[in-house]
């Protein structure tokens, strides 16, 4: 078969992007002791499937696949468009990096099976499968099952460490996640009761702005925001993301919170593009702005490395919600709408790469030092230059400095804000960038202090540092080579992304 046959529109890459990680998860459950032989090949296969999915979209445009051959409203459709493909590649890249990074920690050679060594691998692949299922789903109830798959896996990953404080964090996370799922489910029930379909495309054509529909949309959005940890529903995130083992933190901060955000975007831009009033988009934007300011302020006050990174996630998630007021515009095509929408998606991608790099770099630093107080990291750059450099590169992307992916994202969002004359959001973004620079330089300054630390450090494998660096470089490259991902995102882009919500 020629390569073009493999990428033909009828190849079920969307399905394989769910099948491959599920198979890996089921395989690693009985064979956990041999995880080191399964994890990397399976992860690489997943990465190949993700790239093939993206290539298929690139060549043929958005692809639809009816599971079981049943057309909606009876069956479930898997939908692969530019946005889904971009997130599939992001998920695959970060999951593969995490699998590689976690090998020495969770799949030590010759050791008998341990508790966390058993659990990590199925959880990693189930999380990956759940995220992929969410990304390609075009069915609201199917999304609920995917959200639950992700939520339970994520909670288990948080609790992996087993310390009481971490268990408490996992419990609080579970309470928020379950509340979010149920609110979402209640909305789905109300929509089905009215329109007798769960297919997002069919719903777009029939949905009206009446009481039951708006109540459903409000409930679904509230539930998803709780899972995305948008201020004021963020309290669960910092202890959970800071308490999880570093590879798990990377997955949670880079991918899991983006999953529920992705559904919010699908819901409003794909399903109900004509029902978001100005008050609603302004509310989401305001919460996003609050998240930027409040999360950054709290990141400043932390004295330990992982909580700083976790609070930074709270702040960075805020930018994503600026898409709503910026892409909105009375239902008419706005020249800046597409820029705002693409900027938001770019931000999700670049934050994913940068945050994963940062947590993995932090993980190796913490492993070497033995704790994560930042006053104990003085001069670490001299002994562990690769990890420190990876942290620095990731920081550049988070601050939004050129030439990183974070810069491209903020540039697009800022352009949209200025073109729309919405100065307030632009100021928030600039202040947010300065605050990020503040709390990150506070850490980087410590790294660069004088003094040789190598005597007191534990030896850590160089592999982890290199993986973190590769992810950080990817975040930078996303900015340097932004044309291709930008073009990919535009394939099958919802009309509302250019036309604005109304």
């Amino acid at each position, binding site marked *: 078969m020629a390569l073009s046959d493999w990428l033909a529109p009828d190849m079920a890459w969307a399905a394989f992007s769910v099948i491959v990680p599920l198979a890996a998860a089921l395989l690693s459950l009985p064979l956990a002791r041999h995880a080191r032989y399964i994890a990397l090949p399976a992860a690489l296969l997943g990465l190949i499937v993700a790239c093939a999915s993206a290539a298929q979209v690139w060549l043929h445009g958005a692809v639809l696949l009816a599971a079981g051959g049943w057309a909606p409203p*009876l069956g479930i459709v898997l939908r692969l468009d530019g946005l889904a493909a971009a997130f599939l590649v992001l998920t695959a890249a970060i999951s593969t990096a995490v699998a590689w990074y976690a090998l020495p920690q969770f799949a030590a050679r010759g050791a008998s099976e341990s508790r966390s060594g058993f659990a990590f691998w199925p959880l990693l692949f189930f999380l990956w499968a759940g995220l992929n299922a969410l990304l390609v789903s075009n069915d609201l*109830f199917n999304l*609920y*099952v995917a959200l*639950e798959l992700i*939520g*339970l896996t994520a*909670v*288990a990953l948080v*609790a992996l460490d087993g*310390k*009481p*404080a*971490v*268990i*408490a*964090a*996992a*419990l*609080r996370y*579970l*309470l928020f996640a*379950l*509340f979010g*799922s*149920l609110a979402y*489910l*209640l909305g789905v*029930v109300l929509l*089905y*009761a009215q329109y*007798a379909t769960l297919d997002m495309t069919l719903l777009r054509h029939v949905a009206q702005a009446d009481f039951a529909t708006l109540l459903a949309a409000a409930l679904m959005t509230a539930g998803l925001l709780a899972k995305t940890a948008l201020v004021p529903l963020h*309290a669960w995130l*910092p*202890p959970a993301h*800071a*308490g999880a083992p570093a590879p798990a933190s990377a997955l949670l901060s880079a991918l899991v919170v983006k999953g529920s955000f992705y559904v919010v975007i699908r819901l409003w831009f794909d399903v109900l593009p004509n029902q978001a009033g100005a008050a609603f988009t302004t509310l989401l934007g305001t919460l996003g702005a609050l998240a930027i300011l409040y999360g950054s302020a*709290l990141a400043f*006050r*932390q*004295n*330990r490395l*992982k*909580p700083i990174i976790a609070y930074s996630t709270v702040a960075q998630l805020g930018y994503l919600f600026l898409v709503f007021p910026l892409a909105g515009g009375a239902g008419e095509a706005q020249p800046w709408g597409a820029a705002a929408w693409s900027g938001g998606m770019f931000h999700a991608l670049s934050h994913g790469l940068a945050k994963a790099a940062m947590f993995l770099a932090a993980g190796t630093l913490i492993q070497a030092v033995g704790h994560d107080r930042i006053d104990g990291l003085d001069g670490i750059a001299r002994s562990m230059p690769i990890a420190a450099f990876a942290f620095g590169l990731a920081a550049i992307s988070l601050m939004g400095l050129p030439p990183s992916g974070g810069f491209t994202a903020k540039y697009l969002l800022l352009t949209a804000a200025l073109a729309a004359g919405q100065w307030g959001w632009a100021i928030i973004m600039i202040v947010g960038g300065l605050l990020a620079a503040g709390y990150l330089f506070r850490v980087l300054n410590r790294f660069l202090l004088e003094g040789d630390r190598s005597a007191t450090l534990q030896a850590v494998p160089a592999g982890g540092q290199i993986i973190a660096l590769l992810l950080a470089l990817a975040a930078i490259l996303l900015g340097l080579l932004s044309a291709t991902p930008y073009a990919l995102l535009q394939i099958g882009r919802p009309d509302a992304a250019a036309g604005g919500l109304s």
Partner: protein
Amino acid sequence: MTGITLFGLTGALVIGLGVFGLVARHHLVHRVLAFNLIGSGIFLLFGALASRSPNGTDPVPQALVITGIVVALAATALAVTLITRFAEASGRTHLPDDSEDGDGAV
């Protein structure tokens, strides 16, 4: 009022009761129980709305509810294990109050 509307409203009421239990009761087992109330209230609502079909109850919601019941059980199992683990490790059966800032959060 028909039986269908009646069960639909009962479902709505149970959802409200569950939400109240979730925010008002602090014992973690009570909270998990409240989640199950909310879930089953949503399912009852779904079933009542599905039985508005003139020729027999709509089978699609029935299947979705069965899926939902199983997912709720999975979540409950994980939740009660976390709770007992937390109780046995910390001696507490309530979550400590949220403390936002400072280093004690983790």
